[in-house]
C-alpha cells in the first residue's frame, strides 16, 4: 500500500485537481454513456411498438368499413 492516510490519498501530492479532474470526468463519461445507449434502445422499441399498434388499428378499421 502506497499511502499513509486517506487524506494523503485524496491530496495526490498537491495534484488533486488534476488527477481527480481526469479520473472523475472519465468515470462520469463511462457511466453516463451506457445509460444514454440503453435509453436510445428503449426509445426505438417504444416507437416501433406505437407504429405497429397504429398499423394494426388501421387494418382493423379498414376491415370494419369494408
Amino acid at each position, binding site marked *: 500500500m502506497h499511502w499513509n492516510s486517506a487524506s494523503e490519498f485524496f491530496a495526490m501530492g498537491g495534484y488533486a485537481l*488534476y488527477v481527480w479532474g481526469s*479520473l472523475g470526468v472519465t468515470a462520469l463519461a463511462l457511466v453516463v454513456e451506457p445509460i444514454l445507449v440503453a435509453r436510445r434502445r428503449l426509445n426505438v422499441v417504444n416507437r416501433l411498438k406505437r407504429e405497429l399498434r397504429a398499423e394494426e388499428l388501421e387494418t382493423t378499421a379498414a376491415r370494419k368499413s369494408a
Partner: protein
Amino acid sequence: MSNLNLFHYAAPATFYPLAGRLRPLFVALAILFGAAGLWLGLFVAPTDFQQGEGYRIIFVHVPASWMSMFIYCAMAFWGAMNLVFNTRLSGMMAQALAPTGALFAFLSLWTGALWGKPMWGTWWVWDARLTSELVLFFLYVGYMALVASIDDPRRADKAGAVLLLVGVVNIPIIYFSVQWWSTLHQGASISMTKAPSMAHTMLWGMLLMALSFWMYTIAVAFARVRAIILDRERHTDWVRALVRQA
C-alpha cells in the same frame, strides 16, 4: 466453410441476439480489469521521481488516447467492409462505434489538458500531437454529422465509409507526431522494440486500464448496434415479432 460462418453472423438478425448474449461478459470484464487497473495505478504504483503523484493521470490518459485511435481504425475497417462487401451490419458497426470514439478522443484531450497544466504550465499548445488528436475528434464529429444528414441509411453508410478511409491517414500522423516534429509531448509510453522504461506496476496498471476500456468499448458498441439494428430493420418480420413481445 469458415467464410460462410462469418457471413452468417454478419446478418443483423443473427448478430442482434449474439451481441445481446455476449454483452454482459464484456461488461463484467471491463469492471474486473478496471478495478484491477485502478488498484495498481492508485494504490500500488510508486510515485514518479519527476512528476510526483501528478503522473497518475497516465492511467486514464494513455488508454483513452489509444482507444480513440483504435476505434477509428476499427471504424475504417468496417467502412472498407461496407464498400467492398456491401454488408448492412458493417455500416451499422461503424455508426455504433463513432460516439464512443469521439468520447475517448475528448477524454484524451481533457485529461491531457489537466496533465499539461501542472507539468508544462499550459492547458493547450498547438503542437503536432495535440493538434492531430483534436483533428481526430473533429473527424469523429464530422462522420456523425455526415451520416446523420443523409436520409437513406445505405447511402449514409457509403458516404461515411469514404470519409473514414480518407481520415485514417491521420492515425499514423498522431502516432508518429512526437518523432516527426519537436513537441512538448513526451514520446511513446510503450515501444514495440524496446523494453518498457517504466516501473512494472505502472505498466501493468496502464495495460489493465487499456484492456478495461477495450472491453467497455465492445460492450457499449454492442448495446448501441442493437438499437441501430432494431431501427433500421424495423420492417422485417423478426423485428416486428420482437417488438410485439417487448
